[in-house]
């Protein structure tokens, strides 16, 4: 038992530590390119019919049927206060598995389009520059430079965190 505990500690310290290197799925949102850890992504699908849930903030688009499972979907444009855009052929829902309050949950994020999977070394990643309080620095893992372009790495657990949603709920009410 003690060995497994130690192993667990190792894993969590590895996650918490600065080992941000690894595979990232990059996607587009407006003019910017973002990345999320491939490990967090369960599936990428085209936009399908979304059932709106009443009394939720605008960025919560509603729920979809993912092979019999009801999965909440969030519009990342709206979440990041970008102007809303019509959904096109390129628009995708990235279904991610994130840590909820009561265990792992599935959550969909609508993006303008997915780009590629990149393998980032620790050297490619820089800490997020301090933008002041305005930008949502808490959502970011860091910035990556790939072929002269900057990609913003998201901590998807924090982006799609439901607690945040509850707060928004309270404000709406």
């Amino acid at each position, binding site marked *: 038992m003690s060995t497994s505990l130690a192993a667990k500690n190792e894993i969590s310290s590895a996650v918490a530590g600065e080992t941000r290197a690894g595979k990232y799925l990059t996607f587009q949102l407006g003019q910017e390119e973002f990345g999320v850890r491939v490990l967090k992504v369960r599936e990428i699908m085209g936009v399908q*019919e979304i*059932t*709106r*849930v*009443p*009394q*939720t903030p605008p960025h*919560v688009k*509603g*729920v*979809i*049927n993912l*092979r*019999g*499972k*009801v999965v*909440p979907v969030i519009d990342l444009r709206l979440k990041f206060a970008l102007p809303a855009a019509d959904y096109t052929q390129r628009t995708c829902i990235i279904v991610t598995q994130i840590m*909820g*309050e*009561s265990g792992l*949950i599935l*959550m969909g994020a609508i993006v303008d389009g997915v780009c590629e999977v990149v393998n980032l070394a620790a050297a490619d990643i820089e800490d997020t520059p301090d933008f002041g309080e305005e930008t949502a620095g808490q959502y970011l893992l860091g910035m990556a430079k790939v072929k002269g372009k900057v990609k913003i790495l998201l901590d998807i657990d924090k982006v799609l965190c*439901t607690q945040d*949603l*509850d707060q928004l*709920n309270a404000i*709406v009410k």
Partner: protein
Amino acid sequence: MAAYDGLRQQVEELALRLVLTGPESSGARIVETWSRALQTLQEEAVREGASALAEAARGVLRAMQISDPASALQDGIARLQQALETRAADPAETSLAQDPELLADFVLESREHLASLESQLLVLERDPCDSEALNAIFRSFHTIKGLAGFLGFREIQVVAHEVETVLDQARNLKFQVTPAAIDVILSSADYLGRWLNYLSPAGQNAEMHAPSLDPELLAQIGLIPSLAERAGRIEAKQAPDSQRNELANLAAAVETVEIEELTPSPEERKAEVKRRGETMTVKVNTAKLDYLVDMAGELVIAETLVRHDPELVKVKNARLQRNLAQLTRITAELQKTAMAMRLVSIGPLFRKMTRLVRDLSRQFGKPIDIQTEGDEIELDRNIVEELADPLMHMVRNAVDHGIEPLELRKSLGKPGTAKVLLKAQHQAGQVVIELSDDGRGLDRHKILARGLEKGLVAAGSVLSDSQIDELIFKPGFSTAAQITNVSGRGVGLDVVRRHIEKLRGRIEIRSQTGQGTTFLLKLPLTLAIIDGLVVGVGSERYIVPLFAVRGIFRPKEETIWTVQQRAEMALIRGSLVPVIRLYQRFGVPPHSEDPQKGVLILAEVESQKFCLLVDEVIGKHEVVIKSLGETFAKVAGIAGGAILGDGRVGLILDLDKLFRDKGNGARR
């Protein structure tokens, strides 16, 4: 670990010896017979490093020298056991029992054994010669003993072992099982049950402390054979020509054997079915089951999409049509089977009630014969669990209030043994559970008087019989003149009704004065599926639970009335009912804001009626309820989601919440 177990065994044996033989009269002899055993124990404890135990043993030896040896020994054994406990609490001590999975399995399996042996005991009580039942009970105790020994639960093992020993004697026809013996065996089963409650990781009725080994219980178990013998001797004395009796018995036995050979009795057949069922059971993780149900539902949707595909519809090929029809049949069957896997039989619950009636019948001195029917009827596991409390309450009510005292029954010319029937059956897609007694029935005069007194009925109003019967479900109603510890605390049938309604069921009552009372519980088969009315508001689809729907109306000009320019009321069947415009509550653009172009749905929640204004009614649909997850846990008015026939997600309305906070809708 093994050595430690050895120590424990020694202490237990000492304790047993003390209990069974009792301390001998002369003090000197006690010291002589016991000090040797204690000394060995102490030495061994020192060798094994169990210092607390060694210390305790030394203390006992010393105490025996200086004070009254008999009492010193009594205290001393208790202290030894305590010392063992402290050792057990030692965190450094690792045992199999600390593996939560093993422990949970043990608790689960033992509970099953306890439940089955309890019902078998009641069978045995009716027919003490039923060796099949006796063997089953023996096996159950044996298994529990084995499991407990494996995990190191000494107390459980000791008690189970004692009972097993006694049962073995009964099996070998050393004595016949008497009701008194069954009492003792039942109470040892209860003791084991308490242990399991203590051990279960997240039990609802978890006990805080480990039940201590009760020496009296062990003594009682040990005394069973002698008790039975005595009873047997008295019986023999009372029957002077016992030999002739015996002959008659033999003849009867031969007769029954013949009958049995011709047609296996229903019980036997049931037992056979059950035995087969036991060997074929597999424990499955519910998450896997849910996944299977999800997939089956998706298969049905995919199948529908394929079948209605315009390209495919164009093909006029008999073979293809036949194959498609076959596919449809199979997918439907698959979905049905997947859903049915969540169901469990109601039998164990009924057996619990049988036991309860037996205990109550003793307690009140009212001889009662309880029959159960439809044990094999299956219901959603959650429903069966939730049903235990209300059913228990109703059974208590029936025994306490319904059935008359023995003398009264005799003076009324009724049979002395009262009858209680517990029956489950399928009826129109529901399960109906019927609890009937042949007691005194409802006293409507008393109920009405009580209703007036409590202000539940307006003075001078004329009520029909069924309206009066309804009164007993009102909160705060209790007619029992005398409050017993069983029923009549005023938290009676209103709580029962709320429970049943929470399970989306209904409770009905039928009673005839002097003839008895029948309660009918109408329950859905499962909580996972709901019959819903699919309604449309704008482009959105919502599902209204059908069990709450009382009517659907198209409003006319004179139907809707505004109260103070704010609230709206609808005049339906001569009564005014508040109206909720769903598009307003949910901030959804409707097809039309004119109520006359919409549809009013009359719903009833907790006996309060209200109307829901929607654009259109699309149809009735049986849907599998899915949770929306923690993300939407705080959204008011939505109970969950469901996959509709076209693969879209529909939201199931929470009518109760919708109605209750009708004032503060989102107006976005």
